């Protein structure tokens, strides 16, 4: 019996959310006696980097370096993970919620006859059935959900457990899986992706701007603040709708849902649809010149003031404490 963790990588590094998933697998194993925690990685990535999954809690990493798997073709990844899952005799699959992870997990639920729960926010309770707490209604509530099947898939939300950093590097076992060509029938022709930036869904700190920023030409000051904080930048729906910022930066009910330790909202009034995308944040700072802005009710800290005055001062104050 073992726990398999599906890990993703980008730009030559394991994604931080995937390392968190490994730590979740380890914490799960420690809690319920789940056996070995084995990570599986697909596509071209340096095995020295993969060893780091051991530090986060994996005892072994299985790697198929097949370059056709480097791009995340959904069906091919689902096939590969199912093969590894069966080979290692796992009874639980853990993965981080992501664009690819979600799509792969759904197909695996059928392939493995596994009960799948997504948006998992805590370790399961197993004293009376297998109960998992998950976030629902876009962060407005939680549901205690029982999984009735022998095989289980848990798609874990960011910050469900603390990232472990005290493990030892683990061995990487290379495999060469045989994947049916039909599973590559969907071809990825190109990607258009910001590189070198901190990605919004994975960021520990997020700085977002709304219509109060008055125009895309004013984003520089938010980027300066974000840089000082080591943060990713986001925006409200109206801002991406009018094209000031790209859609993948839209935070909210129908955009990216973030769960950072600190969310800084500048010039965003705090419509309920925006709050739905940020309500899993640990701390929220709101900067708005309107003291009646509803966002203040959801905030931990607030400044009533003009963003154009406050933001440069805040950036300077952050520089000063370094």
């Amino acid at each position: 019996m073992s726990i398999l963790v599906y890990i993703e990588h980008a730009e030559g590094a394991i994604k931080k959310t995937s390392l968190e998933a490994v730590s979740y697998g380890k914490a799960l194993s420690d809690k319920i006696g789940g056996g070995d925690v084995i990570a599986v990685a697909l596509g071209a990535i340096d095995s020295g980097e993969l060893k780091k999954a051991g530090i986060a809690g994996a005892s072994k990493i299985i790697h198929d370096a097949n370059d056709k798997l480097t791009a995340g073709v959904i069906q091919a990844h689902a096939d590969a993970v199912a093969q590894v899952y069966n080979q290692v005799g796992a009874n639980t699959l853990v993965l981080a919620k992501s664009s690819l992870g979600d799509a792969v997990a759904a197909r695996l639920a059928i392939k493995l006859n596994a009960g799948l729960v997504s948006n998992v926010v805590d370790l399961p309770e197993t004293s009376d059935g297998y109960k998992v707490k998950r976030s629902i209604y876009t962060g407005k509530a939680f549901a205690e959900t029982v999984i009735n099947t022998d095989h289980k898939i848990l798609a874990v939300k960011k910050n469900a457990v603390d990232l472990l950093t005290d493990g030892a590097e683990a061995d990487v076992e290379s495999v060469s899986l045989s994947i049916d060509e039909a599973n590559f029938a969907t071809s990825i022709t190109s990607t258009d992706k910001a590189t070198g930036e901190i990605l919004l869904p994975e960021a520990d700190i997020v700085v977002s701007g709304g219509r109060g920023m008055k125009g895309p030409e004013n984003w520089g000051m938010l980027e300066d603040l974000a840089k000082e904080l080591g943060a990713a930048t986001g925006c409200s729906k109206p801002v991406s709708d009018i094209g000031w910022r790209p859609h993948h930066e839209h935070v909210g009910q129908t955009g990216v849902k973030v769960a950072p330790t600190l969310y800084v909202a500048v010039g965003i009034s705090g419509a309920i649809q925006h709050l739905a995308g940020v309500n899993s944040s640990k701390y929220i700072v709101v900067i708005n010149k309107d003291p009646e802005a509803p966002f203040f009710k959801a905030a931990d800290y607030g400044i009533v003031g003009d963003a154009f005055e406050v933001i440069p001062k805040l950036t300077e104050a952050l520089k000063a404490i370094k």
Partner: protein
Amino acid sequence: MKILVCITHVPDTTSKIQFTDNNTKFDKNGVQFIIGPYDDYALARAVELKEQLNATLTVLNVGEAETEPTLRKALAIGADDAIRVNSFPKDSLFVAKQITAIAKENNYDLILMGRESIDFNGGMVHGMVGEMLGIPSISPVMKLEIEGTTVKMAREIEGGKEYLEASLPLIAGCQEPIAEWKIPNMRGIMSARTKPLNVVEPVDESTATEVMQFQLPPAKGAVKLVDKDNVEELVKLLKNDAKVL
């Protein structure tokens, strides 16, 4: 060309979420139900494709009789006929099995739905149906064009998008900006009253998961306001109290 759009019947995005019966049931009191916002994008794109390709468009919901006004709205927006699988949607697997059974009977070329429902946010039904039907499932799709039997799509990934090509048949979970939401016009609303809405019974009652209890997040304390001329105070609070810097 046959298109199926699966829609959810969910609380409006501005709804206050509350529970009853010792936190075991969703409190529908005062809540307005809508077509899931992501499903609405899928439906809007399907209506455009129907016009472009002279396709037929069926809309499907797994739900009890109360969801029929939501299906009628989809008919008013432009679907030709509707199917309601007469059951509470017990879990994602249950819903996926119902959709799969109907898809096997009707051989749709394209199946669209939202990337996820906004009540349970599972985002797994399209992938499950794709796997059960043995066809590609792509999500979240933000652009979808059909040229002959080739489907060209853009899928949102962290920090950007990837462009894909696949062949029909396929299933996609959709999100903005795949199309603009459509508002039904008077002619659509009138014609929706007489379009067929077929009710079928579920095929397989089994599930993999079950919700035992709901919980609301703890209430947020009052905001601590800092004077705009003293931003250093905010930095101190973040560093020493919240310990996030």
